[in-house]
């Protein structure tokens, strides 16, 4: 039978420090996972910050918040579910529900905009508002991916 050290040598030949195998994904505790998940939704990249992935946290923050702010600056508008007129199969207008579901993914970006009235004009005139809507949609959808990535890291499924 191999000694403990011999076995470690065989399965972890390239670790710089054999006592602390850094290449093995670390599984975070349930409270840390929950905090990472919530933080990731509220502030894009914050979940990665909690998990110690500083570079990725900064990257996600800059891109997702940047996309949202860029969308607002192009006169994009934030969507929330509105009642369908004329009444159809659904009580709510399905398009506004889907846009809302996508945009709410950007967390505080959406909530702060809503609270301070940025992008709440229901009839924006500038021709760039469609571009703005698209970038705000992109911010929310990308943040869903980032939340999922943070959860994967917290659960020990990836580094």
């Amino acid at each position, binding site marked *: 039978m191999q000694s403990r050290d011999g076995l470690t040598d065989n399965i972890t030949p390239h670790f710089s420090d054999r006592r602390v195998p850094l290449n093995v994904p670390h599984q975070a505790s349930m409270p840390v996972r929950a905090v990472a998940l919530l933080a990731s939704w509220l502030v894009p990249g914050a979940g990665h910050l909690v998990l110690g992935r500083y570079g*990725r946290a900064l*990257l*996600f923050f800059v*891109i*997702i918040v*940047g*996309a949202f702010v*860029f969308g607002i600056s192009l006169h994009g508008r934030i969507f929330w579910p509105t009642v369908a007129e004329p009444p159809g199969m659904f009580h709510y207008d399905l398009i506004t529900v889907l846009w809302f579901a996508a945009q709410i993914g950007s967390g505080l970006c959406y909530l702060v905009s809503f609270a301070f009235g940025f992008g709440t004009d229901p009839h924006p005139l500038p021709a760039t508002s469609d*571009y703005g809507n*698209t*970038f705000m949609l*992109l911010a929310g959808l*990308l943040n869903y*991916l*980032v939340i*999922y*990535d943070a959860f*994967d890291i917290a659960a020990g499924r*990836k*580094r």
Partner: protein
Amino acid sequence: MHILMMSLYATMTAVVLAAVETRSDNMRDRLIHGLKTFGWFMGVGLLLSWVFLPIPW
């Protein structure tokens, strides 16, 4: 304007998709994945715009 917005959209998406990519852990593979994603976005976008060009609306 259209192509500028499309490029920006493709860049942002490609960077995030490359960063969350799960099949590789090294920077080089992520970079290649990001460039491929960007290329696909731009290529498919330009192809679709060319296909839709004759349509009047």
